[in-house]
């Protein structure tokens, strides 16, 4: 049996298309992160009839965090499907459809719900390509809402990208801005690997949740990609490197801009992708600044922040002179507002860490 016959048998129906522009000029038209994500999905659904969306409340409701608003009206109920509360069944369904060459976008409403369906995610979606020796691809996107800060409690406020990143076989992207939300969604849909697309509720720019102004930003109108696996130096600096992701990017930038006035010049890196991790970008920055702060809203221990630090130490063992991390500690996220904000990586905690690092010799 030849590889060619396998590809035919697995059947992808997309015509060969020209590659899309990569990270074009943002232009002036502004969208919220949620609307940018939806625009990416709509454009991919227009250009490929085998892209479809499924999940809880993705149809008429438009996604409870506005991740699919308007899609039902344009594409109809066969391509935008509300599911029962059956994550194992519908995420598994998406996996099987992807095995047959369709390109499903399936939403896990809150990342905290992964407990009821993780087998289909990490043992099937993520492993089929490997177990088949590369003969079967699973070109699907698993979208999911993450993050806290609005008192939704311990079971509805987690980030958990560290958990997904830890398990081989799935790419993990975490856009923080409208521009990256559209570009990474486009890349994720067109990627032949399973991609977990994790959007923080606090960056979506929702009318009913307090938002950072950076939740609205310029987004090109045309189709374009942001490459999966490439971090972005959002602010250049010389005194220390802040490596961060998601909503924490906005808080880190706020702190960096404030402290620039005091002569502390922070370089801020938005990872954008957790798997594959852009270790080279991180190491290059730290070899320049010598000091590293990781800001990560996921749990502190055994996760992303430790991986970033280990990665630097492995690559640049003598470069790093001081390191800190500002994360959610290893505690379930509390409900009461003051308790919740005591554990989240707030601007105050970030600022204190930056000052300590800047003062370190």
């Amino acid at each position: 049996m030849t590889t060619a016959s396998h590809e035919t048998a697995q059947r992808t129906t997309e015509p060969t298309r020209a590659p899309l522009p990569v990270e074009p000029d943002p232009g002036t038209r502004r969208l919220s992160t949620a609307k940018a994500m939806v625009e990416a999905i709509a454009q991919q659904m227009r250009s490929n009839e085998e892209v479809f969306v499924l999940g809880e409340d993705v149809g008429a409701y438009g996604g409870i965090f506005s991740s699919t608003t308007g899609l039902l009206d344009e594409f109809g109920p066969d391509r935008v499907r509300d599911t029962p509360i059956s994550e194992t069944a519908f995420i598994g369904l998406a996996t099987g459809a992807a095995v047959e060459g369709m390109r499903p976008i399936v939403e896990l409403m809150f990342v905290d719900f992964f407990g009821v369906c993780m087998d289909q995610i990490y043992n099937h979606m993520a492993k089929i390509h490997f177990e088949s020796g590369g003969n079967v691809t699973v070109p699907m996107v698993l979208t999911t809402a993450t993050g806290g800060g609005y008192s939704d409690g311990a079971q509805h406020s987690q980030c958990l990208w560290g958990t997904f990143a830890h398990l081989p076989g799935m790419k993990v992207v975490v856009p923080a801005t409208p521009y990256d939300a559209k570009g990474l969604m486009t890349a994720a849909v067109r990627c032949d690997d399973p991609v977990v697309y994790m959007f923080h509720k606090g960056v979506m720019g929702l009318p009913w949740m307090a938002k950072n102004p950076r939740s609205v930003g310029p987004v090109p109108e045309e189709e374009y990609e942001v490459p999966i696996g490439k971090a972005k130096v959002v602010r250049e600096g010389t005194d220390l490197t802040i490596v961060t992701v998601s909503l924490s990017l906005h808080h880190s930038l706020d702190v960096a801009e404030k402290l620039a006035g005091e002569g502390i010049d922070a370089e801020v890196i938005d990872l954008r992708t957790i798997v594959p991790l852009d270790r080279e970008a991180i190491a290059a920055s730290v070899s320049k600044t010598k000091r590293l702060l990781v800001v990560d809203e996921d749990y502190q221990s055994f996760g992303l922040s430790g991986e970033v630090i280990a990665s630097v130490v492995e690559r640049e063992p003598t470069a790093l002179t001081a390191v800190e991390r500002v994360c959610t500690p290893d505690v379930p996220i509390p409900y009461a507002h003051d308790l919740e904000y005591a554990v989240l990586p707030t601007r105050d905690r970030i600022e204190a860490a930056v000052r300590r690092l800047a003062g370190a010799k």
Partner: protein
Amino acid sequence: MVGGIQVTPQQTNQQMPQQATPDTAQDQARDVAQQPAGSQLLETGRRELLRTMILIRTFEEAILRDYHADKSPAFDIGAGLIPGEMHLSAGQEPVAAGVCAHLTSDDAVTATHRPHHLAIAHGMDLRRLAAEIFGRETGLGHGRGGHMHLFDPDTHFSCSGIIAEGYPPALGQAFAFRTRGSDAVAVAVTGEGAANQGGFHESLNLAALWHLPVVFVVEDNDWGISVPRSASTSVASNAARGAGYGIPAVRVEDNAVEDIHRAAGEAVARARAGGGPSLIEVHTLRLWGHFEGDAQAYRSDLEGVPGHDPIPTYESHLVDQGVLGESDLEVMHASAHERVEDAIGFARSSPTPDPADALKYVFSEGERR
């Protein structure tokens, strides 16, 4: 596709050209697939059912032999040419033969940790199956998957070692077939133990709700490893659970291949015609242990088991009915033996994967656009 030739259920009694690859079980079963539900199997169909079962048993016996050959004197599960767990399907051949007779290579099958009978009956290449079991580079998964993780895009076959988790992807394959306007179906197979797992129930509900072309098959071999059905399942038959989801369901007793064939024919036809999912529970027989190395000390019915072996039973039945003679049986066994030993020989002489490639295949390379 089988040997590059598209076959649909609408083709009737056409002589198929001999394939270069020796997997002709699917092709010769075409006339069986043409029988309307409830009608008599042609003699050729009955012989084909037996031929398939003999091929499966011959293969499983060869794997049994080679699995144990180099694990003595003490049984070391990780040692030898076939390391790891081994779950063989002896005794469950009637399910595979009876169900897969109605399928073409365009139909999907998802199976369990005990997949060989279904893989063979569904037309998987024997050499690549054997090579994967032996962990060779020439195996279906280049040795990455092993016996519980067989993926064959040419026959839309997959299996999983996680109980009940083969049901949900079958829904997706069925969804893709229907979306594309094909009448292909997905057959999802689990054991009776899996019928108590959440994914089983979610899958039945969603398949019924979305009217998907799925045939759910439950192989009730009485034992979930060491736990009998009476200690795991709240109902006497999982066919009763079909009603709970609005799915037509039957239970086939006695592991009788022709009864299975009849029930599967109705279910597959229903799915192809857009009639939605069905559930078939077969009371089958696990002739050997749950896994190789299982002493089965817990198994109270062990003494009577060989007497219920479905293959000698069906052989006698067909001989008594004059469908075939003893010499035909000899030919069938010899032919199966030859095909199996060819496959095993291919596997044993194939290279093992290079450890330098151990990190390959995590993600696809050369992404198609």
